[in-house]
């Protein structure tokens, strides 16, 4: 993942209140919520983002498959 991508992840976590960031000069430091529950929520959010990205891509693949099936006269054995 790129640094930009990482920054995006951190912003989402920050907006969800799961991390606190502080910028001193050129360096931005992050602090995680101390409680286990918050760590778990952060983990689930990261996991959800991964799957959301995958499934957006799957939407594109499915759209192509639907077009192809339609073009082939919609011959389905279902």
């Amino acid at each position, binding site marked *: *993942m*790129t640094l930009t*991508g*990482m920054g995006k*992840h951190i*912003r*989402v976590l920050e*907006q*969800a209140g799961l*991390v606190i960031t502080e910028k001193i000069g050129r360096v931005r430091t*992050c*602090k*995680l919520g101390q409680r286990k529950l918050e*760590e*778990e929520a*952060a*983990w*689930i959010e*990261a*996991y*959800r*983002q*991964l*799957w*959301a*990205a*995958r*499934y*957006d*891509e*799957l*939407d*594109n*693949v*499915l*759209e192509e*498959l*639907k077009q192809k*099936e339609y073009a082939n006269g919609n011959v*389905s054995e*279902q």
Partner: protein
Amino acid sequence: METSASSEPAANGTQVVRKSDVEVEVTRTFDAPAHLVFEAWTTAELFKRWWVPKSFGLNLLSCEMDVQVGGQYRLVFPHEGSTMEFFGTYLEVVPNTRLVWTNDEGEAGVTITTVTFEETEGKTQVVMHDLYPTKEAVNFGSTNAMPETFSQLDELLDSLR
């Protein structure tokens, strides 16, 4: 402004629920019939197009899938100058309905992934359920995760502790 960025990812409806200490479930509905969704999960050429989203800037080196009971799969990713492999065996294959496979690469034991496909009026709900061997494997296992994404996230979380 604050809320728009955090609500954006939820717009496509991907839901993640921690069902128990050792179970995580991901649910999403697709605007396509089940036989096409199943095809996209079981055809290597199609699978590798979406399993590794373009936004991750990472290419699968290889993707082999022998989708039958007892058949093997193997995904190879580039990772820190070397490679990382994800592999396992299909336990159940019910066309257009259900797929179950093992994830054998984890050091903490085998994770079982069950994917069900349920079609209603031309749309298909996909439920992906991961059953981890231990609670620890949920948080630190790399099963189903992009190695780049999750190893970096793990490092980040470790550095923040």
